[in-house]
């Protein structure tokens, strides 16, 4: 094993994802501890130009027609070869629809540890957020290559932009694929674009029923905004996917983000942490969203909404 740190670059349809730059920032912190090089691993077809802004010491570029679009098994095969041959000290993947599929299977295939949900490298320790953001865990690098999946929060993408780095082609071999991409299906056109709203009244599981959404809608109407939601509300079919905030939904940056009954799981926070003014209303004093919000109210949302609506009406 050597002391190098790999960062597996995520890109989709010609765009490098922000998580790639975030991983490069984390990878730099770890490489400083191990004394190794920071290498970005870029896989694709005609994708070399994506290396341009990567703040890495070196880019290992694997070109193959089977890597033109992401599939879990093509990526896994390419990386299993690269990692077991070169034995880096650690390899970062996004805790994303791309990275988790690959890192999870590689851990079992190579029988090496995988640390999930890392948000930061701190004094060489891998700091993870689990249990919906209610628990932190610190893990050291193992005696073998350690795989890490990364969530945003601890670094800004700008910290991982730089370059252009040296690009070194590496051979990758891929065969007998079991997964194939048929097509991409574009998101449905939304009635409201929550990324453009100045005010979002955002509801979580605490709203309890679909009928209660009209309470949030009344607040949104009074403040000239729209209703957005956490994943469970959308998975219940109470609001369309276009209203979802977070990892799988939209990233929003409104002037006011008023969260009603949202716990603040990392997957949600990822989509709203950059809002200008976050106000969290939650009955649980330990809700992780209180660590992100500017103002918090520890009450039952159903006790607060009516007085709040009255107070706004009186003020107008």
């Amino acid at each position, binding site marked *: 094993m050597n002391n190098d740190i790999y960062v597996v670059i995520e890109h989709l349809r010609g765009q490098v994802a922000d998580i790639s730059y975030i991983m490069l920032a984390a990878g730099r912190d770890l490489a400083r501890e191990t004394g190794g090089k920071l290498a970005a691993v870029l896989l694709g077809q005609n994708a070399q130009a994506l290396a341009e802004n990567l703040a890495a010491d070196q880019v290992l570029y694997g070109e193959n027609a089977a890597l033109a679009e992401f599939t879990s*098994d093509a990526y896994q095969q390419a990386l299993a070869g690269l990692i077991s041959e070169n034995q880096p000290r650690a390899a970062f993947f996004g805790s994303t629809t791309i990275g988790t599929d690959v890192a999870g299977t590689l851990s079992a295939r190579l029988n090496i540890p995988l640390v999930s949900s890392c948000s930061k490298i701190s004094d060489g320790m891998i700091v993870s957020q*689990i*249990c919906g953001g209610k628990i932190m865990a610190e893990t050291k690098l193992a005696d073998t290559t350690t795989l890490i999946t990364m969530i945003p929060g601890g670094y800004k993408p700008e910290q991982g932009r730089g370059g252009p780095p040296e690009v070194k082609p590496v051979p990758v071999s891929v065969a007998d694929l079991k997964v194939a991409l048929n097509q991409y299906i574009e998101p449905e056109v939304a009635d409201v674009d929550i990324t453009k709203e100045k005010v979002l009244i955002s509801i979580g599981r605490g709203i309890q029923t679909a009928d209660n959404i009209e309470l949030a809608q009344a607040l949104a109407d009074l*403040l000239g905004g729209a209703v957005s939601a956490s994943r469970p509300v959308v998975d219940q079919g109470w609001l369309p996917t276009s209203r979802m905030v977070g990892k799988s939904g939209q990233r929003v940056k409104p*002037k006011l983000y008023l969260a009603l009954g949202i716990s603040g799981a990392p997957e949600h926070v990822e989509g709203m942490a950059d809002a200008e003014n976050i106000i969290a209303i939650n009955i649980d004093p330990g809700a992780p969203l209180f660590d992100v919000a500017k103002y918090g109210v520890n009450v039952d949302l159903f006790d607060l909404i009516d007085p709040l609506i009255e107070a706004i009406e009186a003020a107008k």
Partner: protein
Amino acid sequence: MTHILVPVKLVPDLVEELQIAGSGNALDMTWLRLIISEFDDHAIEQAIILKERSGGEVTVIAPDQEGMDDVLFTAAAKGADRITKLSGDFGEGFNNHALARAFASAVEGLAPDLILTGVQGNNDLDGSVGPCLAEYLGMAYVGYVAGVSLEGGKAVIKKEYPGGLIAEMEVALPAVLGIQAAEQPPRYVAVSKVRQMMKETSIVEIDAGDLDPSGGLDVSRMYLPEAAERAEMLQGNEKEVAARLVEIFKEIGVI
């Protein structure tokens, strides 16, 4: 006939306050309330939707954790044909690698065409069960799945990308899919129906033998988050809080 296997596990109920064990590197299990992992519940629902749509059999398999029987009888009440429990040392501190190996050894006798797991559990630290299980079985794995149909030896799946983008993919069977969301929200079953199942069905037990946690993690420390900055908590009764909120709305210029 298509046989769909759904491995599930219990995870901490995050509504409860969580505490760290005396060892300093694990959750304190003493007062922990365990519930079925939310995404495993979606996996059960997706399996039953597939069975209703195109026939087949559904087996739900789970480690013998405290409270698991209720979860399994609930799955049976929803439409699972078989409910199975792995007996072994699943009290405290087993990791996902060990659980995936235990599932894998049980799978050999069950010969499923498709395995659906929840994409992730809230306490996953050494990766998730699904990808490990797929690899131990030599099957393909695709996660973040929100839609599955079966077409002649293949699963056609919808894989979620951020912002509502979907990748439609084909996966050769047998395969393991990590379910993010079932096509419909998990159905509700009446307690009476679950009780009826307890009388009519029984849980098949499979011995998991000794657990093998290798490839897992040595966690150095667990702790509760120490936020650098915490929200300013607004105090007072609801009326006072409402008045203060209106002031804040004015300060930031939304009223």
